[in-house]
């Protein structure tokens, strides 16, 4: 289904999350702050991440291979350039805390970060090289970015969508297609496509509700698909995919990762520590999120 070009244009002006904006301003005003703190704020905020990757992958730089991680963007463009791009995004303002759509940003961020950690962890299970595992984190972080776009720019229709999903128990993306004309997976994918992100990432985001035929076709897609379901299993936020029947999943899911969802989660070494670390920024001064 088509995503309107008007909606995509609006994304250039999309603000980041309030706590990240505050942190970017604070860290960039302090000459002694450490660069890795700034990078951590950026690479844990879906909006800052997608927009910095947009700049790094823009046609102006003619990259031979796309940039998917914020660390890569920092090494390629230089720390100061990334810092100033982040400041320019912060200068747009923040996503409103109480948005018209009634979209719960805390749940969204928790689900995105949890999916990011799980996708990276599943990548390790598939023996993806360490250097590529960062891309899996980014895929998890960005997969639902379309929901933020709807919440920001189509608040009334998205509110209706969220309410219907809650009341009917039907998957959110199906209701989005009906009410908004396209779903958040397609919207996120089209945005990433427009901004020249690598094709496997675009495909993974587009198909994050649809399992592939085999795990190895696009491992990023496979890990994101499963990571998204496991994240819902762990945190059960309102906007995450609701109860997914394990029995109807294709056999590769369990052949590749473990016997069932619970045993996959249990088998992930250091998962709790990683989750705690990734979501640590959510709780610091959490009131402002």
């Amino acid at each position: 289904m088509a995503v309107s070009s008007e909606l995509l244009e609006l994304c250039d002006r999309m603000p980041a999350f309030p706590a990240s904006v505050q942190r970017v301003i604070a860290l960039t005003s302090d000459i002694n702050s450490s660069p890795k703190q700034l990078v951590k704020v950026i690479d844990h905020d879906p909006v800052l991440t997608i927009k910095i990757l947009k700049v790094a992958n823009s046609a102006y730089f003619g990259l031979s291979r796309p940039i998917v991680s914020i660390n890569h963007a920092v090494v390629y463009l230089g720390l100061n350039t990334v810092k100033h791009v982040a400041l320019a995004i912060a200068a747009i303002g923040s996503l409103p805390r109480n948005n018209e759509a009634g979209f719960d940003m805390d749940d969204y961020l928790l689900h995105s970060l949890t999916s990011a950690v799980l996708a990276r962890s599943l990548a390790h299970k598939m023996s993806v090289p360490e250097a590529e595992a960062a891309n899996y984190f980014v895929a998890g972080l960005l997969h639902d970015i379309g929901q933020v776009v709807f919440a920001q720019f189509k608040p009334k229709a998205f509110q209706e969508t969220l309410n219907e999903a809650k009341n009917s128990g039907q998957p959110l993306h199906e209701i989005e297609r009906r009410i908004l004309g396209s779903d958040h997976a397609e919207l996120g994918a089209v945005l990433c496509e427009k901004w020249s992100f690598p094709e496997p990432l675009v495909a993974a985001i587009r198909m994050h509700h649809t399992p592939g035929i085999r795990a190895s076709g696009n491992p990023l897609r496979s890990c994101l698909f499963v990571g998204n379901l496991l994240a819902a299993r762990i945190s059960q936020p309102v906007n995450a995919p609701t109860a997914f029947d394990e029995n109807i999943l294709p056999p590769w899911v369990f052949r590749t990762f473990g016997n069932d969802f619970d045993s996959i989660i249990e088998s992930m070494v250091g998962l709790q520590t990683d989750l705690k670390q990734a979501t640590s920024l959510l709780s610091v001064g959490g009131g402002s999120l």
Partner: protein
Amino acid sequence: MKVRFWGVRGSIASPGPSTVRYGGNTTCIELTTDAGHTIIFDAGTGIRPLGLKLLAAEQKKCAVCISHTHWDHIQGLPFFVPLFSADREVHFYGAFDPVYQKDLESILAQQMEYCYFPIRALELKAKLHYHTLHEGARIEFEDAVITNVMMNHPVLTYGYRVDCNGKSVFFSGDHEPPHNIYDSDDTFYGEYDQLIQDKVGRICEVANEVDLFIIDAQYTEPELLQKRGWGHGTFSSALAMARRAKAKKVVFTHHDPSRTDDQLDRIGAKLQAQRRSNDPPMLIAAEGLEIDLG
């Protein structure tokens, strides 16, 4: 191909008795191709006297490759007299600024706005052409080929390589060896280190086996410890890159404004004394230095 240095100072012009021998003008390097065409690296204050020379020359066309738009690399431009002459043609090359979201033409015009300079960019009489380069672009300019690569500086900076009839020059612009932002026991240390290696490798690939490697060596090692992130290299880091790129000759430039002639003499002597047998010949850039690559 011939190379002549018109400005070798970094950060700010620094005239005075202690800089009179190496020179106080900021970055400007002139290349003359075998067929006699002019390619200029950067437009610091050294471009003013170069402009006077070019005005008297027969050649009406030149290329100006801007590494980046910090003041010391563009400040001489409003005083570059060929820009005021209707029979001249100047081609500017440089990057798009990702923070300002502006191209080179807009940024250079900005420094000629009313409060900075009495003549507007629009009033310049020469035929001006601005070319926004993406990294790795290959530009044919008369009998030379110009390529570029992204360096590491607190603004987007291109290093340039020029090839002409089998001879080559690489100019780093301003460059600091990338530093790992993580501690060695952090999870991302290894990944970041690999990204740095890839970046440095890419630069050295572009500069591979150049006949002349002109590189930013603003600091000494102890100075860099105080000035990490300011975007400049040291004599040692510059030499290390030249070795890795297998350069055939190295010129250290972008001298710190506080660096005296005597200090540069001492640094030069020390570098010669410590020179390994397979190291390329090394020179410290000075205004008026000319190198004929044959």
